[in-house]
C-alpha cells in the first residue's frame, strides 16, 4: 500500500527532522537508499526545484517525492504526513507548555540535538556533493583516474567561491548559472 508507506516515511521525517530548512534532507537521503523511490541524482534535482520555487523546502521536496511516487494523491499524502507532527506538537506547545523554553529537560535535549542535526545534514550534503562530482561507474570499473568528473568539480569550486563571496545571492541565480554551464560544458 503505497499511501501508507508514504505516510509512514514522511510522518517519521516530520517528527524527527528538527530545525527546519535542510533538516529533512538526511531523511530524504535515507528514504532514497531504503525505498529506491528516487536516486540521489533525482533528489538533487528535487532540491534544485525546491530551492528555486516559493515555499518551505521540506514541504516542496515532500510534494515532489509524493507526486513522483503516486501522482497527486501521493503529493497530498506526503505533504500532510510531513507537516502533521509539527502541527500536533505546536498545538500542544501553545496550549500546555507556556514555559517550554525554560524547561531543564528541553534545554538539555536541545543542546544534544543541535550538533546532532548539524552532523546529519552535513552527512546528507556530503552524499549529494559526492553524487554530483564522483563518477561511480569509473570506480566500479576500477579506473580511479576517471573517478572525479573534472568539469563538474571545477564548476563546483567556482560556484562555491562566488556564493561565499556574495552571500546575499539568491539561490535561483546560482541555479540558472548552473543550468547555463550545463549546456556549455561537458558535465
Amino acid at each position, binding site marked *: 500500500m503505497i499511501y501508507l508507506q508514504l505516510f509512514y516515511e514522511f510522518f517519521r521525517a516530520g517528527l524527527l527532522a528538527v530545525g*527546519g530548512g535542510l533538516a529533512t534532507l538526511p531523511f530524504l537521503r535515507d528514504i532514497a537508499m531504503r525505498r529506491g523511490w528516487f536516486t540521489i541524482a533525482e533528489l538533487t534535482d528535487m532540491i534544485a*526545484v525546491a530551492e528555486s520555487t516559493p515555499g518551505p523546502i521540506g514541504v516542496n521536496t515532500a510534494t515532489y517525492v509524493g507526486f513522483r511516487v503516486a501522482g497527486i494523491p501521493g503529493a497530498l499524502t506526503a505533504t500532510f504526513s510531513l507537516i502533521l507532527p509539527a502541527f500536533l506538537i505546536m498545538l500542544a506547545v501553545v496550549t500546555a507548555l507556556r514555559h517550554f523554553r525554560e524547561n531543564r529537560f528541553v534545554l538539555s535535549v536541545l543542546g544534544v540535538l543541535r550538533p546532532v542535526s548539524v552532523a546529519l545534514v552535513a552527512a546528507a550534503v556530503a552524499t549529494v556533493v559526492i553524487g554530483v562530482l564522483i563518477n561511480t561507474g569509473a570506480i566500479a570499473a576500477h579506473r580511479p583516474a576517471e573517478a572525479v568528473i573534472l568539469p563538474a568539480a571545477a564548476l563546483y569550486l567556482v560556484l562555491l567561491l562566488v*556564493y561565499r563571496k556574495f552571500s546575499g545571492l539568491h539561490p535561483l541565480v546560482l541555479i540558472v548559472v548552473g543550468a547555463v554551464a550545463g549546456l556549455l560544458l561537458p558535465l
Partner: protein
Amino acid sequence: MKELWELYAAFFRIGLFTFGGGYAMLPMLKRETVEKYHWITEEEILDCYAIGQCTPGVIAVNTATFIGTRRCGVKGAVAATVGVVTPSLIIITLIAAVLQNLMRFEAVVQAFAGIRVAVAALVTVAAAGLIKKGIRDKRGLALFIIVFTAAFFFGVSPVWIVPAAIVLGILLALKGGPAA
C-alpha cells in the same frame, strides 16, 4: 468564518512569496501578521521561531499553527497551516509533472547536470553555515564527529540517531549535567 478565511489567505500569500522557508519567511510574515492584521507582535514571532527551531518539522508550519491557534483555536491552526502549504502543493506538482516530460530532451538533461553542481555548492555553503552556528564547544564537536561518521560512513539512519540523541539529552539532564 471571515477570520478563518483571512488566516488561510494571509498564510497562502506567505507561502507564495517566500523562497527557501525558515528565516527567509520573516519579512513577509511580519508584513501580513503584525503590520496588516495585528494578530501578534514582532516579539511573539521571534519566540515562535525559537520554538520552531527546537520542535520537529517545517518552521513555516510551526509558525502558522502557532498564530492560527492563538486567533481561532484548532480551526484557525488548520486554516493557517493548510494555507501556507497550498502554494507549494500546486506549484511543485505542476513542475514535477512538466519536468518528467522535459527530461526527454537532451538540452534539459544537460542543463540539469549543471544545476546539480549548483545545488551541490548551495547545500555545501548551507551546511558550512550550520556547522559554524551549531558547533560551539568540545562536546558539540565530539557529537558532530560521531554522528557524521555513523551517518555518512556506516549509513546509520537518522530514524535511529535522533531518538538516541533525545535519550542522551534526557540522561544528561537527570545527571544534572550542563544544560544546552
